[in-house]
């Protein structure tokens, strides 16, 4: 029973996080809030990826003196490697987004996305 609840909380939690982020991107008017919810979605996905690699009662996939290098003892390392790169990409995108928001603010002097309609066609 516990195992099911435990399992469910990881997946459910991260998918819930993704939906919150998605809702944030779609509905918020303020650009910075949009970017924040985008970051939220990213973390949600990363959490899901790590959760996928979960193995019952195994410890983190770091080889050091404490635990020897037999494969069974570790959680599946590949998703965690993926998460590393995806976090890097997420931050890069957010940084670029914030820089763009600054530039747009200079031009339109507003952060409200619905007012920025320069490109109507």
């Amino acid at each position: 029973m516990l195992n099911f609840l435990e399992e469910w909380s990881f997946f459910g939690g991260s998918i819930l996080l993704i939906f919150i982020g998605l809702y944030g991107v779609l509905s918020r008017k303020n650009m910075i809030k949009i970017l924040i919810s985008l970051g939220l979605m990213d973390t949600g996905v990363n959490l899901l990826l790590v959760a996928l690699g979960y193995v019952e009662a195994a410890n983190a996939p770091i080889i050091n003196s404490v635990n020897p290098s037999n494969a069974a003892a570790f959680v599946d390392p590949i998703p965690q490697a993926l998460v590393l790169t995806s976090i890097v990409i997420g931050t890069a995108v957010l940084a670029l987004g914030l820089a763009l928001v600054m530039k747009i603010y200079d031009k339109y002097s507003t952060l409200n996305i619905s007012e920025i309609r320069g490109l109507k066609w």
Partner: protein
Amino acid sequence: MLTKYIFVPAAAAFAAYILNKKNKKAGATITALVSAYLLLSLALIYGSWELNQSFNLSLMGYQLEFLMALTPLSWLFAVLTSAISLLIAVFSIDSQADFKFSSVFNLNFLLVIGSIMGVLFARDFLTLFIFWELMTWTSFYLISSGKKKMAGRAAYRYLILSAAAAYSFLMAVIFIFQQTGSFAFEPAAEFLLNNSAPQSILLLLAISLPFWVKAGIFPLHVWVKDAHGNAPKEFSPFLSGMLLKVGFYGLIVVFHQLSFFKIIENTIAYRGLPLLSYLFALLGAVTIITGTILAIRQEDMKKLIAYSSISQMGYIIIGIAIATPLGFSGSMLHLMNHLIFKSTIFLALAAVIYRTGTTKMYEVGGLIFRMPLTFAAYLTAIIALAGIPPTNGFISKWVIYQALIEKGYLFLALAAFFGSIASFMYVFKPLSTVFLGQLKPQHQEIKEVPLLMKIPMLILIGVIVLFGVFPGIQMNIISQISGDLGIETVNYSLYSIQGAFGAWNSLYIFNVFAAGFVIALLVFGLAKKSKLVGLLDTYSSGEYVTDAESYHYAYQYYRPFDRLFDNLAAKSLTGFYETLTANLLKSGESFRRIFAAGRVQNYALYSVLLFVILAAVGWII
């Protein structure tokens, strides 16, 4: 070696383009030389019908072979093309002196000639399609090099219409290619014959669509007026003389070589003629009537003549559609004669435009005193167009009448009669407004056109009278063609054609006409000498006449007659096409307003929606 007829003009085109940059006359001279060369070599290979050539190419896994062959029909059209382009080129050596786009003009003109040769000699659909597209494109550039704004729009509409038709052609042709495995005409014809009738009729109609557009028959004639009216003055004769005829070449190929008539033989017939070809003939009749009515109303010379070309095309399609030997030879005769006298008219008008610079009829007048030779050329041409005996126009119309009366098609005959009688009206209008009546002060010192422009006109007058008196010359090539296409020939001699109800002896009539003329001259000579008096010195029933401008009756020449058809002319077909395309493309506008409205959140929302919809669809199936 048939491909030389395509590559020689193409190569010369680029040479003409470069040379013309330096000296304005070079381009036209090269065109003249090339068409003379083509004419000569064509004359040499007359009769060798077995001359053919094919080369195949495995392209992207498709086995394609390009066939070319010389048939009497294509030989005739090729000779006509090269002859008319020779005359126009000689004419345009001088007349293009002040034409801004003359080098582009000559480049495209030679390319058009080359591509027409390609179309004529093609024996398989792919080559036909390639050269047909090339012809459309190059003539598009030619038309749009005319008067700025309107020429552009006219050429634009012309190209869209022919591109749409070309695509229907391509679709049908590829469908046949899939069934028969090759593009050639023979296997396609044989496949269509033993295919289910409705499907092959549909296929053949799709294939003939571009030819209907190019021939300017009723529902698809919308582009002809603007294209001819606004094309550069040197290209209009070629456009209405030759380009319209290439459409008929295609139609003849579809009707006879692709055995369209054999297919529809067993469909329900009206008075012995399958309903579908009677429908085509009716279309021709309607073309005559609309062309004539609209021609009478025009104020612009070239537009008037353009409409008259449309109505003359109606005669040709009637002749071809009723498919009797008389009908076919009548239409072929009329096709050749129309080419001759229509290009004379256009050349004469081009000469007038070259000297006066305007195409509006009411802005000129009384030019007979300054340009007698152009007047003579125009007079002979309109006598031929109206179909008055000693000229070739009468013979072809007479043969078509014989064909119609022989089979008793009343409505077609009615339209044909209407067309030819009304042609007196719209033919006389330019004569009286441009050449006769008062000579405007600003045109006092106009000189006759230079020699190089006179020669083509003189040659064409000679040809009109020659074929008027000796139709036999035309008839022996036509009988070759009907023989090749499997239609029995009409018996004829050098100067008479055996119609359904009687032979027609043109030499005899010519002598009688001359005799009558001599007697009248005698009566005129015996009487007293008459005193020459100026144009303004006329009986003006009491009014005081000051300037020639107000004393020249030219504007709305047939106003009473036009009043009968005002409402018909108002709802023109072009309006219908314009609105159709306009609101089709408006839908694009509303489409954009709904979706691409610039709000990024909507875009993100759409991607999620797509996911949801597709998931739902996947889940249901």
